């Protein structure tokens, strides 16, 4: 197989719209990616020919909905190289991390330690701070290298025999830095700690072989991976899911309820109380299948070729500075930069007038901004459907901001 960007783009109708007289150069994929027709069709098919609740009903629509929902679980599992019953559908990536903090967190005791890093998204910081307030665990931080990668050389210094969990971004949502998972897992084993990866920025760039990574928990969001909003995924090793107590009570997650006591359903249902986001789950299954059908060697080359075009172009604009790995090594297609003398929001607003959508600000990573003493950055996040025209429009907009706003 190879990569045909035009063929990919044709699967995303929004890319061909003219909005307020401007084309769509969508480079804010790290916030929310666009959705291909295959996903829209899957959701529409469920909503128009199979809409019903799952698990409970005996009528044919309910059976059809249940089959579609469980097929989606299998699609996601295949994408991650794991078994379907190890996949828990959640409301999003944040919800998945909170689930682990609430449920796995109940297995921890005062004085146990969790290790995160200074570049984490707030969703991988705040749930642990809340757990610290609730149960007296301690929180440790991995520092960063000057180019915005997690400094794994510090692992021996910050790991302790009380460290129970290391929870890190697989790919930084700000710097694009790719974590050296092997090194983390090796270090975790020396103290018996579990490893969780926040895959929000990695999952949109192709299937993940969780078995090969050797980790214990993985989470990602549907809407960043070409799926619908309101759906996310938690994968955990089955023995961990078995040991974890429920974090939310209600229908579907029970074994037997009496007025005296309740027993729990096995995982994954134990963690899916109430009616789940059925349509979004079906859409996410379709998104995983859509991603799995791409040739990711060629797709990754395409994406990283665009990253190189961004890096080269920004270098030619006076006063730009990259926050993140300077080369294509150890990075994914997320590029953050600063333009000297121009606030990131003003860069982003100017880019909007060129039809270019990017994210600017702290990217829900304020500790990272504090670490580098930054107000924020302008972030370019690339998807397979982006092309040279998107990058050239970006560079034209940044040049314009540099010329007019300082």
């Amino acid at each position, binding site marked *: 197989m190879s990569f045909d960007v035009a063929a990919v783009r044709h699967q995303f109708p929004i890319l061909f719209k003219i909005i*307020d*007289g401007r084309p769509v150069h969508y480079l804010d994929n790290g916030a929310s990616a666009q959705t291909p027709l295959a996903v829209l069709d899957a959701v529409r098919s469920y909503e128009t020919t199979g809409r019903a609740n799952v698990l409970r009903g005996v009528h044919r629509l309910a059976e059809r909905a249940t089959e579609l929902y469980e097929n989606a679980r299998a699609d996601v599992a295949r994408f991650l190289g794991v078994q379907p019953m190890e996949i828990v559908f959640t409301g999003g990536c944040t919800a998945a991390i909170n689930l682990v903090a609430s449920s796995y967190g109940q297995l921890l005791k005062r004085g146990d330690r969790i290790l995160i890093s200074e570049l984490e998204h707030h969703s991988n910081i705040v749930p642990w701070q809340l757990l610290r307030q609730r149960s007296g665990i301690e929180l440790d931080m991995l520092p960063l290298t000057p180019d915005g990668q997690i400094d794994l050389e510090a692992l021996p210094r910050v790991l302790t025999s009380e460290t129970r969990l290391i929870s890190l971004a697989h790919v930084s949502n700000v710097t694009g830095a790719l974590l050296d998972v092997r090194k983390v897992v090796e270090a975790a084993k020396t103290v018996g700690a579990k490893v969780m990866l926040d895959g929000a920025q990695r999952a949109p760039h192709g299937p993940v072989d969780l078995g090969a990574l050797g980790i214990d928990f993985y989470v990602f969001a549907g809407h960043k991976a070409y799926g619908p909003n309101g759906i996310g995924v938690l994968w955990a090793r089955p023995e961990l899911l078995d040991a974890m107590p429920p974090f939310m009570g209600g229908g579907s997650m029970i074994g037997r309820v009496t007025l005296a006591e309740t027993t729990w359903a096995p995982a994954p249902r134990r963690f899916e109380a109430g009616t789940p986001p059925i349509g979004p789950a079906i859409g996410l299954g379709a998104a995983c299948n859509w991603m799995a059908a791409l040739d990711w060697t060629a797709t990754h080359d395409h994406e990283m070729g665009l990253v190189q075009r961004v890096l080269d172009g920004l270098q030619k604009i006076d006063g730009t500075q990259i926050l993140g790995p300077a080369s294509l090594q150890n990075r994914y297609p997320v590029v953050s930069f600063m333009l000297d003398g*121009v*606030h*990131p*929001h*003003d860069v982003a*607003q*100017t880019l*909007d*007038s060129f039809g270019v959508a990017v994210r600017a*600000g*702290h990217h829900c990573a*304020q500790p990272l*901004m504090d670490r580098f003493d930054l*107000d*924020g950055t302008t972030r370019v996040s690339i998807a397979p459907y982006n092309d040279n025209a998107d990058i050239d429009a970006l560079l034209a907009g940044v040049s314009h901001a540099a010329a*007019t*706003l300082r």
Partner: protein
Amino acid sequence: MSDELYQTRIVALAKSKTGAGKLAAPTKSARRDNPLCGDRVTIDVTLDDTGHIAEIAHQVRGCLLCQASAAALASIAVGRDAGGIAELRHDAERAVGREAGTAHEPFDAFAPVAAHKSRQECVLLPFEALKDALS
């Protein structure tokens, strides 16, 4: 469109940096953050015996709109008390389309922000900080 947002008067206000800096001995100071975008404004004031502003200075870690608004506010804040600043805020709210009516100099410069709802808080953040400083 966004091009019109950065019209000459707004850019000139920001670049004027009127009141930018710190006061050596402020009577009161207050800091306000916008949790959504991370903009931060710190305002120092000295007050006279009647609670009117004698001196004002601001530090803005934020966008051009926030800088411009802080400069505009600093340019006309001296001599006003909390009530007078509240009146100015109404003028800024009118400029960005949140209140009916015509805005006056210098806040009428922010009229283009009316079309950009996500940026209106940038204009109003210095007022929030000054309100806290005067409370």
